[in-house]
């Protein structure tokens, strides 16, 4: 989430006038369960993986190779949200220890990561005055933000900031659809999915090609992913072509159809009340079909023979009528798919992805409202991810205190349930990424060397 950069005096100390996530202000004395400032201090002191974050953000430039750009890490923007909603933008650091010390010292409630700029953000004023706009983002991961509150019109178990195991699978489905497309369609390899700490997921695409995308290109990918269009005023928010684009077709047959029919239908009881089934009937343009169905369902009519769940029965009835071919118009034919897409297809926050300078919360932060750590999610087994059992700050500290006193464990986090997450982060994401970065740096160096050799021919 971006905020206004209001500067007072020469320091970048900003009193945040916007609302923090969820729209609730943090009260200094009413620490929610699982989160408090002292715990956070210990967390940053012992558990937060500072070195890994530094390695990641360096993208291989912290090495000794002559082609490494020593200024690279220092041009990355970080922002800290402190206690009492004090907000510091354009923080930058020149080494791992600078980053670590600043975090330990300031103990930010939230750390956001911004883009890599053309020059050190701390020096931006000097360049802005030259009028040529040379202070500009040059690299930034391709990012996505999926928040379950955007699905509030299709989940009945929770609303607002709450999440439970009945509605969380919507996030799982979103991960599967987007992850597959990023890899198969766009050819990206270095993708990190992270739990946002409360009610959603973030995605960081870190390939060099992704980091160098322009705003227009980012917007085009976000639009490629967009299907759901509309607000409370429009009845039909999904309009599909026949045939579907292969990306949508694959998403439907491999993920969405099955999820809708075997999970969501039942967990959300989509046809169980008149209010709920009317919402679905609204999506069918043909009056004769909707009145026929209404006739079957009104007054809680039920086939006395069937032992099957009402929702399943009614969905089958709806499908049978729409797909019967009785009504030749194209509308009813695609309706079944449109209904499935309306409920299950990923809903992205477009603005987050479109602009290079958009800030996003760093992984391994602790969510102030829930106390939960923003841990990575493995897209290959994301169905197993349970947001209700993600380690909280207080749990981790407890584990640290009572954990084994083995001397051979180098890292504190290994004593705790955070260990699994850090190890996953390293092996599945960071190591392959750094290997690829090293290759990229070496290759481009060799190419330049070759080129200059050639150009020396008289």
């Amino acid at each position, binding site marked *: 989430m971006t905020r206004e950069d209001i500067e007072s005096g020469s320091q970048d100390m900003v009193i945040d006038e916007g609302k923090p996530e969820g729209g609730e202000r943090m009260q200094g004395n009413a620490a929610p369960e699982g989160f408090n400032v002292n715990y956070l201090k210990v967390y940053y002191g012992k558990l937060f993986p500072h070195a890994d974050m530094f390695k990641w953000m360096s993208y291989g430039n912290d090495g000794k190779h002559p082609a490494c750009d020593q200024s690279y890490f220092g041009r990355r923007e970080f922002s800290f949200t402190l206690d009492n909603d004090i907000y510091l933008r354009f923080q930058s650091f020149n080494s791992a220890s600078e980053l670590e010390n600043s975090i330990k010292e300031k103990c930010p409630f939230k750390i956001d990561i911004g883009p890599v700029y053309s020059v050190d953000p701390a020096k931006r004023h000097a360049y802005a005055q030259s009028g040529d706009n040379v202070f500009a983002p040059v690299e930034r991961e391709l990012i996505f933000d999926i928040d379950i509150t955007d699905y509030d019109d299709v989940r009945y178990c929770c609303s607002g900031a709450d999440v439970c195991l009945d509605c969380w699978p919507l996030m799982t489905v979103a991960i599967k659809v987007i992850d597959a497309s990023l890899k*198969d*369609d*766009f*050819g*990206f390899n270095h993708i990190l999915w992270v739990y946002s700490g409360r009610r959603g997921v973030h995605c960081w695409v870190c390939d060099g*090609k992704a980091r160098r*995308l*322009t705003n*227009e*290109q980012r*917007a*085009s*990918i976000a*639009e*490629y992913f967009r299907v759901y269009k509309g607000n409370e005023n429009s009845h039909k928010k999904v309009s599909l*072509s*026949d*045939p*579907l*684009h*292969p*990306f*949508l*077709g694959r998403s439907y047959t491999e993920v969405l159809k099955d999820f809708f029919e075997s999970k969501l239908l039942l967990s959300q009881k989509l046809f169980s009340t008149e209010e709920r089934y009317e919402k679905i009937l609204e999506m069918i343009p043909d009056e004769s079909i909707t009145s026929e169905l209404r006739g079957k369902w009104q007054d809680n009519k039920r086939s006395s023979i069937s032992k099957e769940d009402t929702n399943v029965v009614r969905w089958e009835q709806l499908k049978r009528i729409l797909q019967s071919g009785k009504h030749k118009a194209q509308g009813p034919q695609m309706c079944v798919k449109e209904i499935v897409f309306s409920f299950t297809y990923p809903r992205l926050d477009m603005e987050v992805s479109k602009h290079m300078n958009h800030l996003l919360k760093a992984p391994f932060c602790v969510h102030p409202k829930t106390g939960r750590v923003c841990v990575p999610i493995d897209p290959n087994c994301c169905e197993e991810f349970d947001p209700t059992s993600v380690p909280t700050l207080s749990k981790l500290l407890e584990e640290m205190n009572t954990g084994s006193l083995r001397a051979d464990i180098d890292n504190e986090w290994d004593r705790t349930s955070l260990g699994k997450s850090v190890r996953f982060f390293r092996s599945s994401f960071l190591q392959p990424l750094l290997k690829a970065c090293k290759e990229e740096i070496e290759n481009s160096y060799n190419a330049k060397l070759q080129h200059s050799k050639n150009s020396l021919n008289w």
Partner: protein
Amino acid sequence: MEIVGSRRKALHYDAVSTIPLYRSAPALEVRLEDFELFAMDRLRVLKGISDALSRGKKPEEMQQVERDLWKANMKHPEASEVVNKDIISHFVLRLAYCRTEDLRKWFLSMETALFRYRFMSESVEAQRALMAEFDLPYKAVSNAEFESTKDKLWQVARSVVPPLSTADTVFYKVPFEEVPELVAGRRVFVHKGHAYVARNQVVSLVATQFRSHLSKALILTNRKWISTIREQESDRLAPIVEALCTSYLGPDYSEPRELGDISIKEIDQIAQSSFPLCMRHLFEKLREDHHLKHGGRMQFGLFLKGIGLKLDDALAFWKAEFSQKVGAERFDKEYAYSIRHNYGREGKRTDYTPYSCQKIISSSPGAGDHHGCPYRHFSEENLRAALGKMRLNNRAVEDVMDKVRSRHYQLACTLTFEAIHGTSCDAGINHPNQYFTDSQKYLQSK
């Protein structure tokens, strides 16, 4: 480009591909006559495209329209000169159409459309060469790869609106970052970082580049025109260039066709059956008021000359009306001369050839005037009444009013023609005398 007198020296020009890109004015010498004639031929092509587009012709049809127009107008007796004519005519029109925002906009749209249709008619190799010229070095998908992906490619083609033709088997493999609009609209199959762009879609990319280059060039041409050319060429090229934009390009009806002479007795009858609304109105007012002001006299008088009214008959006709108002003597003294004057002139003096629709539409009738184009100059109420008098049914009136609202006055007149005669007029109405001739031809063929 050098403009010379009648002596001509053809220079060798290396064409990189079949469609010139008009990147810079070539080193050619042009005869003064060719300067104007080439430009007018090209202008016919551009205007033809403009007309066809506003008649709602579909893109597939437009390709054929362009081919026909090009064949009809851009030929040259010496085959080697065809390319030169193409290039020269483009650059002359650039001079003519760089001078105002509206002219630039129109020229840009038509030249881009022309380029687009020509590109689509080219062979795959020629297209690739052109794409390379625009820094769009896309590789065509190999046969093997096409076979393995064609189902997906056709699925995408059928999923977009409007659907792409699945007959097109030429696809280009492009890094997805280079075609953000196509990716955003899910109009391409994307796989492992590449977008598979259909030939028609590549046309859009190429056309966009062409347009952007030409747009910048027009601005520069305008600057040069204002700063140097206009003055340097004030008595040679400037008048030609300035006249090009407003020229009417069809037959000028200065030599009336042999449809048989029209006699005064017949005028009432043929006015009912074959006059376009503008002339019916003038005729009606003349009969009513026994007078017309200057604008009306010119517009109607020249029209009558064009339909074949001989000078003596014309004099008798006008005298019969005017003398009822101003008396025979005053008619002879003040009005007869100018009628003779209109008939006496020969050659291509545009002032004395019957006015085209373009000219009539752009006139500004004031109080007491009845000339101009009713579709433009009448109030909605009056126009509806006039159309009603011509016995158009409600549906036809609505269609006409629709065209009027979108300022397609000539199309409105064409629809009127079609409604009255019960036949279609594909060429559209560009000249009142054309309306008359077409009407008479149709009626006599029945």
